[in-house]
């Protein structure tokens, strides 16, 4: 009869931390110029950062690997939060239309930005704004009379997603060839054109999101048995839904704005970790941050190396690996949980 204790939680997080460090090393070692583990460690330890190995590791790969880890963490944590809030293990940031809103903002600039003098650098802020506007719309429509209903949220998200998809198709069809290619890459999700200076912002949103929602972890456990039941156990369910909706939307907005639409991370990682560690959100939320970070860093390493001399969008890797993995997890889940 194992109960989650602080020691057990810390031990699980330490193991996942070690997995993340391993993934970061794989990420740093992956690329066209073959560097040995000793060269990588040497470059990391070199304070002055002089030499070709230091150039590659510190200036090219490390920023990308770190930003990949931050984006993966944001997506996985938003996934687990949306699933907890909607009480649906198959929910993710896409379900509520939050990703769709961010995509619409980004693609609006990609397709029409050049006409008004906006370059690629305007895409992340536009995507972020799209995400915030979507969240505000969701909130306004679903939170009528100050109560946030999960059914209304889901329905609003489904309708908004359909609207965003139609608008994206419209914008892609009127865009030129070059813009069309950028839109395609952005819709699949890629870490190839990320800008290093945004890492701080993504990290800040991740820390804010985790800081706001980890204290709610226990109340999210109680919500698993229904919102009313949680209220009767002392949970302010409306406040909980507001904080979770806003925090997870900010994290998704930050991730999508720098890397486009990378799918499956928010679905697979919480699902996999729930199978291994159990459904307790006190462990699942921080564990998803570490697991999501490790997963996206490894997927990005694969994206950079699987085709010799060419780079695949990381979103294609997460979808190709994630689809079958998710189906397998779903089967395991049903065998184990509903047997």
């Amino acid at each position, binding site marked *: 009869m194992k109960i*989650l204790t602080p020691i057990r939680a810390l031990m699980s997080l330490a193991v996942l931390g070690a997995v993340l460090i391993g993934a970061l090393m794989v990420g740093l070692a992956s690329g066209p110029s073959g560097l040995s583990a000793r060269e990588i460690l040497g470059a990391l330890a070199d304070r002055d950062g002089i030499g070709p190995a230091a150039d590659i590791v510190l200036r090219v790969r490390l920023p990308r690997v770190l930003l990949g880890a931050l984006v993966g963490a944001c997506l996985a944590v938003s996934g687990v939060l949306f699933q907890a809030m909607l009480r649906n*293990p198959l929910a993710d940031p896409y379900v509520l239309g939050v990703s769709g809103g961010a995509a619409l903002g980004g693609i609006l600039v990609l397709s029409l930005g050049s006409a008004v003098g906006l370059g690629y650098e305007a895409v992340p802020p536009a995507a972020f704004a799209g995400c915030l506007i979507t969240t505000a719309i969701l909130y306004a429509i679903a939170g009528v009379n100050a109560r946030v209903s999960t059914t209304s949220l889901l329905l609003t998200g489904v309708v908004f997603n359909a609207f965003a998809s139609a608008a994206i198709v419209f914008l892609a069809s009127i865009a030129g060839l070059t813009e069309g290619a950028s839109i395609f890459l952005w819709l699949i999700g890629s870490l190839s054109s990320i800008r290093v200076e945004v890492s701080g912002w993504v990290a800040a949103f991740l820390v804010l999101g985790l800081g706001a929602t980890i204290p709610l972890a226990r109340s999210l456990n109680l919500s*698993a048995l229904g919102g009313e039941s949680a209220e009767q156990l002392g949970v302010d369910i409306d406040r909980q839904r507001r904080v979770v909706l806003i925090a997870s939307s900010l994290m998704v907005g930050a991730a999508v704005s720098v890397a486009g639409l990378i799918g499956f991370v928010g679905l697979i990682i919480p699902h996999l970790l729930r199978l291994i560690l159990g459904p307790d959100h006190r462990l699942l939320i921080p564990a998803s941050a570490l697991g999501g970070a490790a997963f996206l860093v490894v997927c990005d390493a694969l994206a950079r190396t699987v085709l010799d001399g060419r780079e695949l969008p990381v979103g294609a890797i997460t979808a190709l690996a994630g689809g079958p993995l998710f189906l397998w997890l779903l089967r395991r889940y049903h065998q184990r949980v509903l047997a």
Partner: protein
Amino acid sequence: MTGAALCFEDISLQFGDREILRGVGLEVPEGAVVALAGRNGAGKTTLLRIASRVLRPSAGRVSIRGVPIDEFSRRDLAKQLAVVPQDTPVSFPFRVIEVVLMGRSPHLGVLGFESRADVALARDVMARVGIEAFADRSILELSGGERQLVLIARALTQEPRILLLDEPTAHLDLAHRVAVLDLVRDFARNGRSALVVSHDLSLSARASDRLALLAEGRVLDCGTPAEVLTPENLTAAFGIRADVIPAPDGSPLVVPRSATSERMS
């Protein structure tokens, strides 16, 4: 102001044009088990939801030992009052022990890791309710009756002063029905109280000190089970003809015969 464990004063509730409750007054004394009966839709569950503050009445107030429930924080109210719902949706595979330990939430801090004493209490309650054998099973695997027992264990682990039970025996076999009602009676000793919604009138009569009949949003009658369970009241509350005969222990046994002509029409 009254010092009853739980007191409903002149509670009314309206949804649009529909009046669900009309001036309901009811007291649950300290140390007593009060049964609440009535037709489907009579407002029994609504009354429990108002007591646990998930629903606000249009008029009237609820108080616990004279203190209006609005004056309690959510956590403090959850320390006073635990609810056993008819059933509950479950979305994640929490184990039975984890669900039972959720009852400790109002007593824990922010992250709320349970102490050894909390775990010992949960184990003790599970043994009393008879569910210790499936402590490590996922709640998603359980039958409706087993799940109901888990929710009862969770409410008892909450250590409230007042227990609100909404048809706690609906999914249970006869042996478990008797066992649960005995648990409720045990709970009501030492100055604690319970309000039990039940459709099993004979069993409620045996297990409760007082019984209230709700009909059309009002309290039709309230008193000892023998006073309230009369053929006339049963006709008025349920639209049935019924015989009421004394059981060997003196409690009334309700034997339904037929629906009245008004009910049939």
